[in-house]
């Protein structure tokens, strides 16, 4: 048997798919390979991945890619030019600014919002959920009541009220969206924790004298991560849409920042004659949130074949 294993070349397909991995790393890589294969079979998911990679690329190199200054326009010669005008691929807005350049720079704001919301909300949800699920009893009851209360608010409405109190601005918008985003993560982390709270490996660590803190941090949380990542990815689109909605209402990023939602709001006045000013940023939002939705769907199907196709 071992003779057969040894003839397999390391890192080859057979090595990765082996039923008897010789090392932890081989097992891990093998699992990752299987997930990747399943993910790769789904063309729509690959499209989503390409869109998100493109978003990252554009955000990183906006300075190089943008043909014009995103904040300073040519008021004299280039007001409200249609798409395809010389030097302005997607046209210009009412202040003579190149819409393409503004969209490219705006991708940074979009990315900033989703990343910061994820960085704030996901750990909060993870901690609340795992502690709640592992501790049980009254701690669980109290934490879940709090979670339910935040779930009871429609996201956008709570975010609106929060921003109204905090004052408009992109930082406050991010904070408000984060406050409305964590409860589903707590629910998921709790459900995951409950499924293996009674399992043997947890009992084994308990017998070895590990503190509850250590068990939650080292043994419970890592196992909740994959379902949490899927959920966060699927939520990204919703976060982008909420941020754009806040921007549209003038509560998010303030002018002259090229936030996509605010750009739609400023193009609203010209929508009948210069439709592109409002239309272009909307297309950008649609593409990016579609990308996150496709990627999230694909990840869910790849990581959890049980739910595939639902």
């Amino acid at each position, binding site marked *: 048997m071992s003779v057969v294993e040894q003839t397999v070349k390391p890192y080859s397909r057979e090595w990765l798919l082996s039923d008897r991995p010789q090392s932890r790393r081989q097992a891990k890589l093998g699992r990752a390979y299987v997930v990747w294969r399943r993910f790769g079979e789904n063309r*729509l998911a690959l499209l989503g991945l390409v869109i998100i990679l493109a978003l990252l690329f554009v955000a990183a190199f906006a300075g190089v890619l943008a043909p014009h200054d995103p904040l300073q326009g040519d008021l004299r010669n280039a007001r409200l030019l249609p798409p395809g005008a010389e030097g302005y691929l997607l046209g210009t807005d009412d202040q003579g600014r190149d819409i393409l350049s503004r969209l490219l720079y705006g991708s940074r704001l979009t990315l900033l919002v989703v990343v910061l919301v994820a960085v704030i909300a996901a750990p909060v949800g993870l901690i609340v959920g795992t502690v709640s699920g592992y501790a049980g009893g009254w701690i669980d009851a109290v934490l879940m*009541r*709090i979670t*339910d*209360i*935040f779930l*009871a*608010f*429609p*996201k*956008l*409405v*709570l975010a*609106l*009220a*929060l921003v*109204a*109190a*905090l004052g408009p601005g992109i930082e406050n918008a991010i904070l408000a969206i984060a406050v409305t985003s964590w409860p589903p993560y707590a629910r998921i982390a709790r459900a995951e924790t409950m499924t293996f709270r009674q399992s043997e490996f947890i009992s084994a660590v308990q017998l070895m004298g590990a503190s509850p803190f250590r068990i939650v941090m080292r043994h419970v949380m890592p196992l909740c991560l994959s379902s949490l990542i899927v959920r966060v990815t699927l939520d990204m*689109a*919703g976060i982008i*849409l909420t941020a*754009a*909605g806040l921007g*549209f*209402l*003038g*509560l998010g990023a303030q002018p002259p920042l090229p936030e996509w*939602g605010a750009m*739609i709001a400023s193009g*609203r006045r010209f*929508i*009948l004659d210069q*439709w592109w000013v*409002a*239309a272009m*940023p*909307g297309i950008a*939002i*649609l593409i990016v*949130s*579609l990308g*996150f*939705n*496709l990627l999230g*769907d694909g990840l869910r199907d790849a990581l959890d074949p049980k739910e595939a*196709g*639902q």
Partner: protein
Amino acid sequence: MAPMDTSAVTRRPQRRVPAFASALMRFIVMAATTLLGLLAVTFFIGRVIPIDPALAIVGDRAPQHVVERIRLELGLDLPLYQQFWIYLKQVASGDFGTSVLTTNPVLTDILRVFPATIELATVGTIIGAVLGIPLGVLAAVKRGSIADQVVRVIGLVGYSVPIFWLGLLALVLFYAKLGWVAYPGRMDIVYEYTFTPTTGFYLVDAIWQGEWDVVRDLFRHIILPGALLGYFSLAYISRMTRSFMLNELSQEYIVAARAKGLSEARIIWFHALRNAAVPLVTVIALSYAGLLEGSVLTETIFAWPGLGLYITNSLQNADMNAVLGGTVVIGAVFVGINLLSDLLYRTLDPRTRSR
């Protein structure tokens, strides 16, 4: 499991009612604590986060004596827990404060505008359910086919598109360019003088009064925002219908029905869909609640005089009482719909009863 089942069968008449009553009790307690939590959050947003809540209510440009008066009215000199207690008592008696913008009590304003939102969300949900359920069934039956992919993409786009942007584009196309629908607003100005609504639900009122001109005009106004909201509810409903149907179609009773020689259409529409309908009720209720939220942005685009427009207008004018009152009302309706759909699910699905 087995002994419990037999006892359930023999003592069913006595057992079922108390079980339902205790479930109802639990729901009421849950609803009450959630509502209390909602109020705690809005209290926190309105009174604790702003540096000076009095200024947040009257605005920066209010004269000093007005600020002082509001400060005393709010009881800002009292400790926080007493303030919260006062706030609770006020809300319990229907007092959400006065709107600076309209100078009416906030509750009066909300009761005036809410029917418009409910009407819009209802039209949206009807459109979403009528189109979404057949699409979901189609996708499940033809799983993996082109039709399935198309339904999936329609749904995904619905999840990904900014509603206010789609609304703007739809207005340009269907109102400005094609002239198929009426301009933003709830009805033509002409009718505002001739038509006197009795309940606030204009469509119902107009049909009741037999004013068919008004009905047609109302329809021309509601169809576009309603269809837009309907699209969002369609995205959700079709996706869930598909997954429920896939679940039902893999059950053994479907095989049995096929073996008996029933037609495929009968199996799908009468046997499978009937069982999928139970969880679908919950989904439709949830999407209805979701549309109340979606109406905030839709109403601002379509100048629809509902709660969403009221909240955003108040926001723009820093009218904090109105914003928080609207938030509490939408939150409370949300909680109510959630609990109701849960109760409904338990009543409709016999399997959940004996547990």
